[in-house]
């Protein structure tokens, strides 16, 4: 990402953002709410458009709306805060829809692959249920499986645990840690410092639409350089 700017009317949501994520790298984006970290995440697959600047994935610039953009999005997995599973489809159908419609897999192939993924995230026995019949943690794991089914080059996580009850947070984080270990390229917006320490290669700290600090997790948490990061960390780590 080079010189990315984003305005909502008068509000300057992203200011001069530059970020480069390597293959296989796990980048965790943290920062106070309203700092622009979710917006940053959503611009990467153009769910939010940007006002200026460039975003390139694998050397290619993000295309405008259309078939090309759809193709690009299929290579970028996304996991939302509110899961956003398709509520009229079963768990299995949620995971097979993309592969069948976009990757043009046969139903049998797609289902086989989906069952493997559901197995991996631990909800295979729920395959025939509807999203509303599952707990939040289970739904989020299905959402991860849905994204993985597209065999994405990079996965975006937009506060994946913020809408979960505390006891369900770990089951989702465990899946994410596994993914990170397997070498998936990940951009994770989260408040889970434990995850950042355990899985991240780099931590990006954002505040007021700017990237304030980028560092390795250990260094960032023990020795933050900017005042804003110190202030933020002191607020969340005192408890």
């Amino acid at each position, binding site marked *: 990402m080079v010189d990315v700017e984003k305005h909502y009317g008068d509000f300057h949501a992203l200011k001069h953002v530059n970020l480069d994520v390597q293959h296989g790298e796990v980048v965790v984006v943290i920062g106070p709410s309203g700092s622009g970290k979710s917006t940053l995440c959503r611009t990467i697959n153009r769910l939010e458009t940007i006002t200026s600047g460039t975003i390139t994935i694998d050397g290619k610039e993000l295309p405008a709306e259309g078939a090309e953009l759809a193709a690009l999005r299929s290579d970028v997995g*996304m996991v939302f805060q509110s899961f956003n599973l*398709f509520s009229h489809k079963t768990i299995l159908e949620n995971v097979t829809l993309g592969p069948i419609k976009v990757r043009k897999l046969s139903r049998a192939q797609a289902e086989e692959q989906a069952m493997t993924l559901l197995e991996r995230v631990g909800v295979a026995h729920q395959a025939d249920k509807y999203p509303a019949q599952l707990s939040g943690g289970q739904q989020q794991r299905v959402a991860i499986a849905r994204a993985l089914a597209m065999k994405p080059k990079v996965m975006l996580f937009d506060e994946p645990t913020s809408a979960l009850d505390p006891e369900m947070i770990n089951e989702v984080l465990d899946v994410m840690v596994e993914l990170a270990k397997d070498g998936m390229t990940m951009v994770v917006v989260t408040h889970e410092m434990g995850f950042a320490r355990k899985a991240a290669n780099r931590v990006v700290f954002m505040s007021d639409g700017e990237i304030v600090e980028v560092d390795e997790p250990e260094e960032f948490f023990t020795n933050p350089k900017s005042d804003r990061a110190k202030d933020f960390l002191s607020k969340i780590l005192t408890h």
Partner: protein
Amino acid sequence: MDLPELLRLFFSGMWGTLELFFVALIGSFVLGTILAGMRVSPTPVLRIAASTYINVVRNTPLTLVMFFCAFGLPFLDIRFGASSSFNSFIYASIALTAYTACFVAETLKSGIATIPVGQAEAARAVGLTFGQTLGEVILPQAFRTVIPPLGSVIIAMLKNTSIASAFNNRELISAMRNAIELRGDLVIPILFGTALGYLLLALILGRVFDYLERKLVILR
């Protein structure tokens, strides 16, 4: 004309009503869905075209729409076969479809508005195109949320088929006029009988929609 003959007359009329109803039902769902899709499309031309069509046709009395189809289309030499009764059936179907599709589209659009925006975002994030997002994720959910109001639209269409009798279509109202002409002594019972015919069909439709609503309800 005795009672069994009267009943036969009414059943043949009811059959005429049903034929028109089913053709227009399918037509208006197809056209209505397309119009609703155009209404929410990212392409301004499609949006404007659909909303213009809907605003013009929906606000024209159905009798006039029928008039345009029954007398305007043949004037433009648009015909669908040699027999005028088949032509008239198609003209009436076109008119009913064109008219009802507007209401189907508006109902669907209101249904689309109730679908959380995250559903479309998730679909797009998976890589579905706009058309696929609409067809696989948004419309199926929108349909389910608007089954009750859609039922009202469809029941209104059932009753609107009665206008077609004025344009060379034999249906329930034709049977009624026919029966009144033959049995002047039974005018009031014949009127009641006709109303009962529509009531019966509408009640059956209502049950079908109730069933669909229960069957297709989406848990959130």
